[in-house]
């Protein structure tokens, strides 16, 4: 059993946020330049600045360099940033509203719910909102699942670990049953897409995908920023939060919608990438403490950093092949989740 130090030395918010931002920028430049067609960092920056209308820095020396960056790499890295930020912030918000550090979009089933939404429109072949259809369906799937998990897993204002994890198992089982049916019913092309979804990958990143999820993601992140202070108060429990002026019902509704927007954005084009929302907020809490203002901002940066790095590893670790991203995050996140579970159990002295 680990012993918590009585007095914690905490990094205050700003150094952490600045450090994460610098690391994220460096990593995105590195990731954009890496791959079968290597582009040095200064040429990546040069290409980016020229694309934004600023004539500064060298253009890629390879004849296909500029094209490869704008057609493939930039959308992919940008989507990794959006998906990573969304999943980590969604995890932190779920943990805050459940008062439970083990809540995570994939663990509690919200991600698979969003995937059901996305798969359904894919198999049905509908596109009522054009480009936005898949993202909107993922949002609606995520919203329905978040509500279900929320209503089923809570009692008396708190959610016990056991209830939450078991609810997640049930919701995941049902969602994967629906996905299995959709896989069965789908034509071969849609079937391939669904399989890719379940593994989690940024292979399908395009400028259109990015344009479709960014508005949802930004709305979700804005909601996260507005509820941060209230989530701090909710750590005292619902009654005390209400006594301190929080309209708890309203807060819950906001968080549920925010989580659905974020998870929908994360899942719509990248599939189920698990455990980012668990690992990242947990590490941030260990470094900077649990206050949600810093936690949510740092989780957004940290989640983006982790996903850009993981995606870089996924597509460069093996020559001429691409590892599924969800596989990588699960291989790291699964044991981490187990460790967290064991630690929570030893602190509580066994399950209730």
């Amino acid at each position, binding site marked *: 059993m680990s012993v918590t130090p*009585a007095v914690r030395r905490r990094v205050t918010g700003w150094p952490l946020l600045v450090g994460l931002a610098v690391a994220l920028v460096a990593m995105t430049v590195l990731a954009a330049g890496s791959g079968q067609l290597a582009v040095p960092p200064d040429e990546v920056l040069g290409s980016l600045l020229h694309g934004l209308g600023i004539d500064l820095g060298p253009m890629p020396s390879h004849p296909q360099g500029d094209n490869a960056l704008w057609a493939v790499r930039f959308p992919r890295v940008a989507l990794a940033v959006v998906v990573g930020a969304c999943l980590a912030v969604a995890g932190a918000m779920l943990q805050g509203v459940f008062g439970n550090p083990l809540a995570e979009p994939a663990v509690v089933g919200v991600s698979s719910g969003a995937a059901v939404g996305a798969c359904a429109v894919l198999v049905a072949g509908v596109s009522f909102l054009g480009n936005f259809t898949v993202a909107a369906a993922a949002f609606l799937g995520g919203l329905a699942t978040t509500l279900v998990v929320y209503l089923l897993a809570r009692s008396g204002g708190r959610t016990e670990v056991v209830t939450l994890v078991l609810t997640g198992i049930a919701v995941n089982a049902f969602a994967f049953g629906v996905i299995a049916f959709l896989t069965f019913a789908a034509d071969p092309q849609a079937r391939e897409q669904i399989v890719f979804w379940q593994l989690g990958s940024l292979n399908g990143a395009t400028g259109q995908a990015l344009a479709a999820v960014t508005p949802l993601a930004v709305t979700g992140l804005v909601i996260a920023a507005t509820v941060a202070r209230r989530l701090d108060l909710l750590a005292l429990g619902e009654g005390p939060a209400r006594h301190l*002026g929080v309209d708890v019902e309203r807060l819950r509704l906001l968080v549920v919608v925010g989580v659905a927007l974020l998870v929908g954005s994360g899942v719509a084009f990248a599939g189920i990438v698990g455990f980012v929302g668990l690992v990242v907020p947990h590490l941030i809490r260990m470094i900077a403490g649990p206050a949600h203002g810093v936690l949510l901002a740092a989780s957004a940066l940290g989640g983006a950093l982790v996903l850009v790095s993981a995606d870089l590893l996924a597509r460069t670790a093996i020559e001429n092949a691409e590892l599924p991203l969800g596989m990588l995050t699960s291989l790291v996140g699964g044991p981490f989740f187990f460790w967290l579970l064991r630690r929570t159990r030893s602190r509580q002295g066994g399950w209730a």
Partner: protein
Amino acid sequence: MRRPRMPEPVEPGEVLAEAAGADVVRGPRQVLHGVDLTVAAGEVVAVVGPNGAGKSTTVGLLSGDLGATAGTVTVFGRPVRRWRPADLAVRRGVLPQHTTVAFPFTVAEVVAMGRAPWAGTPLAADDEAAVAEAMAATEVTGFAERTFGTLSGGERARVALARVLAQRTPLLLLDEPTAALDLRHQDLVMRVAVAHARAGGAVLAVLHDLNLAAAHADRIAVIAGGRVAACGQPARVLTPELLTGVYQREIEVIEHPRTGAPLVLP
């Protein structure tokens, strides 16, 4: 969070919370029957009674957590359930019987949460002073940087009280503020409550220790079986006949040799 409507100044003796003929039903059981109770500016009202008599329910009733199925509950002249949470939070503070904190927040952070209702108002400038004063009054300054989860039961209870004091509201509803405390800190907490009342505030505190209530409260309400069995000055309420009936065991009451307050001997 929305900005609150600032509280109006409180007149001395003004009734800040009042239950009139209030019934409360929880599940299949009626737990309060026609409760009449007032708390006015300048006084400490102690609520005492056996386990399960309805003391915490009374606090829940006055704080608006529980609705009355009959009768009325008014705070600051308006039905308690008609207040917006933000406006009520700058007028009354509530100390729950147990405080838990979901994440490893430090003591200083937990106490500072008491200032949340004032965010965006001119009084937010007092945040630091209010937190420091509340922590000093409850003697928790020494472990300001420790996380709440590492504290002992008595330390947690005082931090929870500090959080409520930092809120700086005229009306305080305290559910067993002294339950986990040693003798010295019980006395400390009751003196803080009395000081709040003397400064013009109103305090309702659920207490188990009848002698603590007798020594510090201006009025005592004895609750038994969901009804107010008696309410008034300690010497009038704490009689052997009443207490023997309420607690269903032989109880004697004598006069304190020095202060003259009633001393309850079980």
